[in-house]
């Protein structure tokens, strides 16, 4: 009895390919990668069972060391069933992605991108409150128009007009001429 080197090499190759594939952006390749990883792990469990031996059917004439260890094979069966279910579900999701968006790539989280673009200036929390100097305020006191003041606020490394910063708070909209946020404006 000896260690099955072929099995170990196959396992290593499967792991390498699997890890390479799950790092791709294409969903189908990710799925293939996950399947390879699951199968590589099954081989690892098989290898964990030790040397190859006889089928574990009790026979008085056989010495107990000649049997194969049945437990890892039971574990592999369970793990095959589980990875089968997950693969089927992933296929469903990939098909659904394709029928919804006509693409096979992992898509960005839109809300996350929006939060990343949000300037540190917050129109409600951080805007300068107009100082009322008069003791008797005029009933129609003119509100400070940010467009005319030309005030700028720091936005990341650059400065941007306060009006534009306020406009950028708007979900999904962008004021014309606005500079990109701190992390750049990739959509």
């Amino acid at each position: 009895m000896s260690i099955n080197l072929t099995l170990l090499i196959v396992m290593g190759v499967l792991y390498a390919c699997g890890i390479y594939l799950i790092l791709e952006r294409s969903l189908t390749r990710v799925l293939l990668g996950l399947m390879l990883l699951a199968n590589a792990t099954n081989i690892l469990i098989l290898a964990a069972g030790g040397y190859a031996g006889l089928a574990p059917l009790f026979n008085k004439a056989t010495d107990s060391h000649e049997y194969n260890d049945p437990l890892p094979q039971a574990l592999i069966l369970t793990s095959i069933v589980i990875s089968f279910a997950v693969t089927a579900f992933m296929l469903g999701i990939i098909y659904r992605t394709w029928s919804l968006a006509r693409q096979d790539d992992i898509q960005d989280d839109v809300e996350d991108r929006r939060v990343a673009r949000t300037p540190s200036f917050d129109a409600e929390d951080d805007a300068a409150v107009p100082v009322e100097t008069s003791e008797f305020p005029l009933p129609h006191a003119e509100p400070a128009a940010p467009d005319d003041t030309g005030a700028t606020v720091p936005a990341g490394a650059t400065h941007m007009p306060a009006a534009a910063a306020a406009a950028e708070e708007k979900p999904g909209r962008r004021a014309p001429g606005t500079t990109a946020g701190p992390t750049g404006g990739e959509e």
Partner: protein
Amino acid sequence: MNIASLAPLAVVLPIFGSALTFLLIRHSRTQRAVSVGLLSLTLLLECWLLASVWEGGTAAVNIGGWLPPWGIVMVVDQFSSLMLVVSSAVSLAVLIYATGQGMTDGDEDAPVSIFHPTYLILVAGVSNAFLTGDLFNLYVGFEILLTASYVLMTLGGTGPRIRAGVTYVVVSVVSSVLFLIAIAMIYASTGTITMADLAIKLAELDPGTQALLHVLLLVAFGIKAAVFPLSFWLPDSYPTAPAPVTAVFAGLLTKVGVYALVRTETLLFPGDSLNTPLMVVALLTMVVGILGAIAQSDIKRLLSFTLVSHIGYMVFGLAMSSVAGLGAAVYYVAHHITIQTSLFLVTGLIERRGGSSSIDRLGGLARLSPLLALLFFVPAMNLAGIPPFSGFLGKLGLMQAGLQLGTPLAVVLVVGGVVTSLLTLLAVARVWNRAFWRKPEDAEYPDPVLQSGGKTGVLPATMVGPTAGLVAFGVALTVFAGPLFHVADQSATDMLGRSSYIQAVLGENAPVPGTTAHRESALPSEPEQLDTTAQAVAK
């Protein structure tokens, strides 16, 4: 007959209910009655289990009569039964909430009718993970709950949910593969996967192998528990799911990961070898998570980030590996399951009443719906750790344990914990100020639903009821903090001592490896001290 031998029913009942509700897929009213009834039955059974182990006493059930270490074993101790009761109570509340939502919206047809069977499978998976004493069965429990969660996450199959589902599924599968690799390596090096047996045999391996297995398990469970460098997937995927689904995910799934981390650290690898990295990771989880929360304008996303952040507290309590720290962590897990779930449920109500969950589009909810404001305010303050709520008690317990430990890193973590608590307060106060206190017309982009006075008018009682019940349950955790802390400390003592767990599984004569000296010296007088503090504050 020992009550504990009924423990497998906590897994079997929901699975049976799932099959039954699947058959009743065309009879939605019967389906609802069956699922709520069976889950209530499970909850009663688990309360019974908790009562039977309340004063200590760990019990083990051998499935199918196979003796350990060959067969699968289920272990009922104080920690697992406490987790079972809290998780089932929370899932029952969420189930009633979801049923109420489904009934009001009239979506009686497929695919929402698949909700009940899947949900019960999820509950079965969670119960299995809490009960099992077998490492591979723990993996199976994880897979049961994860597979159910994939379906729930992508319920309805809309664009954003599918996008979020892809990330979630891929990350979960990778963590499961890591866990499976760890199991294979553990089996290769020890020849067993029964956790009690492993507790004895892992200690005999050479330190290098031990460290490898330990780190593999920690990384696998760390992904599931959303501990900082491995938490990126959570705020990306949770917020897009339907409100009740997000609520139950936030409450339960990460906590199953935390539970597994606790078992790894206390039962399998009790040494202090990785406590320092765990503490650093806990600090980063707390601070980075909460900084993320402050940047968000969507309440669901904000809550997802606070969820990540507060996992840090539990890891902190775990990393101290003292009775006081672990006991506080156990209490904190129970508190956090309840509070985080009720906050997500309230967010579902906010979305319903205000038309949106973005704080830029909300305003004036305190006047429009005072009940909603109350339901948000209590758990929000609880989460931020304002006295006298349970969040404060749990954090106080952790701080005391940290100061008792007294190492510089522990003190840094205590400071980090206080800062995180304050920043949590800032985050929820921001929601409060914008969504509840300002006038509706002050909202940046007021939602049409808000201005028209709500599309549904009054909120359905079947949704408000469970939410209020869960908020009340959170308050009850405060009122009964004394006895709860007592149980938490006892379970921490048991877990760190390990002997009751190992002997319950392997029999009275099992050899119990000795615990380290500093842990024994940390035992006396701390539980009582923490107890009296908790009781004093609870009064």
